[in-house]
């Protein structure tokens, strides 16, 4: 599997905040679920990586999961999903 380049450190910081705060409004700040399901390593373990990335970029029509492509690039989304599957970093301020 070929990865797009990882986002740089500054972008990673932005993405961590975005995921915790803005994805958090539906998935919970601790990503333990809300209107959307939990995005914890346990919950994602058996799900295909590529389709999770596609969900983030293109959303899931007919559900409340919106497409993020205007804000999150394919490379960003791959990084997010990889980190979600490992246990998502907490914000450092």
């Amino acid at each position: 599997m070929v990865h797009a380049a990882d986002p740089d450190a500054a972008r990673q910081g932005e993405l961590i905040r975005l995921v915790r705060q803005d994805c958090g409004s539906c998935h919970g700040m601790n990503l333990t679920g809300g209107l959307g399901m939990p995005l914890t390593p346990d919950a994602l373990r058996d799900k295909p990586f590529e389709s999770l990335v596609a969900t983030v970029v293109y959303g899931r029509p007919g559900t409340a999961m919106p497409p993020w492509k205007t804000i999150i690039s394919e490379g960003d989304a791959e990084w997010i999903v990889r980190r979600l599957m490992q246990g998502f970093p907490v914000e450092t301020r």
Partner: protein
Amino acid sequence: MKPLFALLSALLLSACAQAPLRGTGDLGVIIERATGRVAIVDTTAKSILARVEGLGDLSHASVVFARDGRYAYVFGRDGGLTKVDLLLARIDRRVMQAGNSIGGAISQDGRLVVAQNYQPGGIKVFDASTLELLSEVPAQSKVVGLVDLPGQRFAYALFDKGEIWVSDLSDPRLPATQKFPAGQQPYDGLVTPDGRHYMAGLFGEDGIALLDTWRPELGAKKILQHYGKGQEKLPVFKMPHLRGWAVAGGKAYLPAIGRHEVLLVDTTTWKEAGRVKVKGQPVFVMARPDGRQVWVNFAFPDNGWVQVIDTLSGQIVQTLAPGKAILHMEFTPRGEHVWLSARDDNLVSIYDTQSFARLATLPADSPSGIFFTSRAARTGF
């Protein structure tokens, strides 16, 4: 050692006895969501009086007040329900009541606190003084839009089932529930200030489900069904909130989902009465208590703006940039000031609603909801 201890406790006791008496009418709480903490505030002094820690996961927390204004019931995302004593600035009681919760309501007589839950889906009924669990209504669906109705009843909507339920808790250990088909994916609900009409906003289709709770036998009907016909919806990055909604001058002001618009509905005919173009997708659309102004904040990525609609002219009269990520607003009881939380600036700003001048800022850690005790006396809050 002993005499010293006695002396100290005597001093402490007299210090307590001398703490000035105060009422609760100008108190409130700010949720500091990242730290599981609430700040207790004084809206006259515009200051933070104290902080109470240990409330768990407060992302998406909401608050209702005991009718004496002394206690705040804080519903946490993690299912924690915490009763905070605002006068003593401490946790009075706390229970973990669900796996995943999003809010609650308090009964007309103030004796019952009800939580609305995602996981397991349904509502749970608690004794407001002891937080003892009295009963539950399981729903096999996420529950949204829970409000109190007159007569110890509660209305709520089922996201996954597309229904509105009304539970009568006259006997709190034996809820009696009526069910009404509503529409696809209701995402939040509200009740008119008189406690009569319950509305559930629909995410899965255009329109709003409306139930006249004085005439439940008529069932829920759909209004504003065609407001978005033929137009592509924008991606919705945050669900709008209906609670805290606005009725002014015979019109209801509602957030349009997936559009940069506020919708106006005539509250006698329930037909569309106009639209106001705004800067982003509205999240909260709230009337100043006198109804002359309606304040609107927005979803990501437009969440740095706040706009004010003059209800007489129907025009936007002010656009403010109060800070980064404005999550919530709360008016002082009679509306001379509004408090706004700027999550990413770690600030709460207080504005004069007449001059739009910023009067003060208070430091707060990732502030989200702001709730004042004047809610205690309002149906649907």
